[in-house]
């Protein structure tokens, strides 16, 4: 990757983050449109996006965010309350930004449908606002022009410009607020400036885009009479600009970087409370530039400016961006370290050495290794907050589309989850949330009122730790799932025969079968029956599972249960013959040695164990892997009951060895076809154990509950 490509990759990543944040912030702002700090935050995001987009040639994105930024700037500068329909426009603009970004990244020539429409609306809004905001137009009509007054009092042109500038500075100082800097800029463009492509108005335009207020004074005293006048030569001796802007000195200076040093002079004006009205104070960071520019440097730079600059540098260093690939490598290395440490700790020869100091050192090594492992693990962990906040947008949009009033409650947003999982979790969650509103909640307010509920539905999104796993649950207080209807549909579609004795959870699990939908009508949100099975598959890819619980008339809860990380699993070690296998603990329901009378053999169906009224098929691990182990009866071995996508199965093993966290290793291409195995792990004694993929231990079509 070239340097340019690397920088571009960073831009794309940053832009993605900015857009994600915009998406969340704009919804918060919609809820509280008086929060001008948030509006500033949104403005800053859009401003950064604009700069970066233009720098990398994403002109369509740059163009759009440029105008959007103008509108945001107008509102944040004027603090004018934002009309509801304009808030809608803001939200729509963020959508357009997301769409253009996709177009830019995929090099799609066609613009998103809403692009032009939204851009036009923004431009119109801005035009209306700016015209409306032209200050003192009516008053000024009655004010004598400076020229007349000056002539009357005999002021020279220079004096008159000076007076005007001074008056303007005083006016701007009176309205100057924190975060805005006041500058006086003198432009002394050479006569050939037009030929070099510079016009005074060009600078005014560029500065104006970043200004809260801008005023300029053109000194025309050197203009010749028409016989000597040359249009393509500038006769304007000086233009003095007074500008109130959030820009720093360096940022202002960037506008003039292509001019000669003697063609411009920038002076930062101190806010009104200072003793002297006009002194040049420059941020420390800009001193290097100043030396080459025509700006005076005063020696009385206040200490406070220096301190601020230093503080800013320190805070900037508090975070660092790291490629996740490097983190993965680090994580792998830690995995190896854990294995090596386990090897030492369990090595029989080492254990035979009766030396207290060696024992203590091994113990210390073990503790340090665990600490390093935990810390490296934590590097990959991020709070689920951002993903949850994204759901606010989903709920808002779905609520508007369905016309249902919805309250979203978020709980446990600080719960941390592996970064890799966060990225894959958004889509399934979006689907579940849409489903909850579209199908979960009652069709209208009357239906809710009749059921004794509030008009507004409630959807609760919760994250919490449970038994070494992370649970993300989405609950609605809607009508719940009609089990009869689910069963009827399942029979209609041939998913079940109707003879099965299914538990509630198994009935609800039918909803996640491919092509299954109980929705009477298909909406653009959900009901096509292509969603929940995809959700289930996505969660299973994350080595997680999804459970549905519902009470008719009260509501439904979808629970996504995920391992803490994708790199390490909590496993139950079992022995079958001479081999050790690992069963992910997340799937394990219980383990037991069955009594002979509860084991049944059904003709052509195999062995079953009867457990609390349920017949669970027995899967002999020795048969699955063709092991040369002595064939024993189920009641002589151990049955590990696990939950799979197609129901429970009992895996028959010889012995339970223990429970251990293991670092997952991929098996390579040769073993990839073995669906019954999802990976391998190196045990403390150096042996390799295979991790079972319990879902593949029995084909789904074999579901038979007798």
């Amino acid at each position, binding site marked *: 990757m070239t340097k340019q490509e690397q920088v571009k990759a960073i831009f794309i990543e940053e832009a993605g983050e900015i857009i994600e944040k915009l998406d969340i912030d704009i919804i918060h702002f919609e809820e509280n449109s008086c929060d001008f700090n948030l509006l500033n935050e949104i403005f800053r995001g859009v401003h950064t996006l604009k700069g970066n987009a233009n720098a990398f040639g994403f002109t369509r994105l740059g163009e759009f965010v440029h105008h959007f930024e103008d509108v945001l700037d107008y509102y944040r500068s004027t603090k004018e309350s934002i009309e509801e329909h304009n808030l809608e426009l803001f939200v729509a603009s963020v959508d357009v930004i997301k769409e253009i970004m996709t177009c830019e990244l995929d090099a799609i020539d066609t613009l998103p449908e809403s692009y032009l429409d939204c851009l036009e609306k923004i431009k119109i809004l801005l*035009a209306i606002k700016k*015209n409306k905001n032209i200050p003192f137009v009516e008053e000024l009509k009655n004010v004598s022009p400076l020229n007349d007054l000056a002539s009357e009092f005999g002021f020279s042109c220079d004096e008159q410009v000076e007076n005007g500038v001074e008056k303007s500075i005083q006016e701007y100082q009176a309205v100057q607020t924190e975060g805005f800097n006041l500058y006086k800029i003198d432009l002394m463009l050479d006569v050939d400036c037009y030929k070099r492509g510079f016009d005074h108005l060009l600078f005014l335009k560029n500065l104006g885009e970043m200004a809260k207020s801008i005023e*300029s004074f*053109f000194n025309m005293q050197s203009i*010749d009479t*028409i016989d000597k006048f040359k249009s393509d030569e500038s006769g304007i001796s000086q233009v003095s600009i007074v500008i109130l802007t959030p820009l720093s000195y360096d940022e202002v200076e960037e506008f003039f970087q292509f001019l000669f040093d003697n063609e411009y002079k920038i002076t930062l004006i101190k806010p009104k409370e200072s003793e002297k009205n006009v002194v040049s104070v420059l941020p420390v960071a800009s001193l290097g530039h100043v030396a080459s520019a025509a700006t005076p440097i005063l020696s009385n730079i206040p200490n406070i400016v220096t301190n601020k600059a230093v503080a800013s540098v320190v805070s900037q260093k508090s975070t660092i961006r790291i490629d996740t690939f490097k983190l993965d490598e680090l994580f792998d290395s830690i995995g190896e370290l854990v294995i090596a440490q386990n090897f030492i700790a369990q090595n029989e020869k080492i254990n035979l050495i009766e030396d207290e100091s060696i024992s203590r050192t091994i113990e210390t090594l073990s503790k340090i290794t665990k600490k390093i492992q935990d810390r490296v693990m934590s590097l990959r962990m991020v709070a689920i907050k951002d993903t949850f906040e994204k759901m606010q947008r989903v709920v808002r949009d779905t609520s508007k589309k369905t016309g249902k009033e919805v309250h979203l409650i978020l709980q446990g947003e600080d719960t941390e989850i592996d970064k890799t999982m966060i990225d894959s979790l958004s889509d399934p969650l979006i689907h579940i949330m849409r489903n909850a509103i579209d199908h979960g909640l009652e069709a209208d307010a009357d239906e809710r009122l009749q059921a004794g509920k509030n008009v507004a539905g409630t959807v609760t999104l919760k994250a919490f730790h449970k038994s070494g796993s992370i649970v993300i649950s989405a609950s609605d207080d809607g009508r719940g799932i009609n089990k009869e209807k689910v069963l009827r549909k399942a029979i209609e579609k041939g998913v079940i025969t109707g003879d099965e004795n299914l538990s509630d959870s198994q009935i609800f699990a039918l909803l996640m079968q491919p092509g299954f939908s109980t929705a009477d009508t298909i909406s653009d949100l959900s009901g096509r029956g292509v969603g929940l099975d995809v959700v289930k598959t996505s969660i299973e890819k994350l080595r997680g599972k999804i459970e549905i619980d519902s009470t008719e008339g009260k509501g439904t809860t979808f629970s996504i249960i995920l391992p803490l990380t994708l790199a390490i699993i909590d496993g139950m070690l079992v022995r079958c013959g001479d081999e050790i296998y690992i069963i992910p603990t997340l799937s394990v329901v219980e383990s037991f040695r069955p009594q002979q009378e509860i084991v049944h053999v059904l003709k052509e169906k195999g062995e079953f164990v009867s457990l609390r009224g349920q017949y669970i098929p027995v899967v002999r691990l020795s048969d699955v892997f063709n092991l040369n182990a002595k064939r024993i009866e189920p009641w002589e071995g151990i049955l590990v009951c696990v939950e799979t996508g197609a129901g429970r199965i009992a895996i028959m093993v010889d012995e339970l060895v223990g429970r251990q966290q293991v670092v997952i290793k991929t098996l390579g291409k040769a073993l990839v076809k073995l669906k019954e195995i999802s990976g391998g792990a190196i045990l403390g004694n150096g042996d390799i154990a295979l991790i079972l993929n319990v879902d593949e231990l029995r084909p789904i079509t074999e579901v038979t509950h007798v």
Partner: protein
Amino acid sequence: MEFNGDVLTLDTDMSMDEIREFEEFIRPRMDYIEVIEVEETSSLKCSAFISILASLKRTKPELQIHFLEKGMTISPVYGKIHWICHD
């Protein structure tokens, strides 16, 4: 640009080329023009526009150019612009 009797009407958004043409046009016709009206329908395009008006006023002080005489304009693009022409 529109010529109607002794009144010349200009638009604020004249480009540099148009100003150059106007310069050529106006030079021999200074005597016939009494009033220059400026239609502020859009934003200025070149600072040379203000310059040429200032030049005309300097050449013929009795020429009525209300736009120039008011000494300022307000633009949503450039903010408040003042010009000082006497001396």
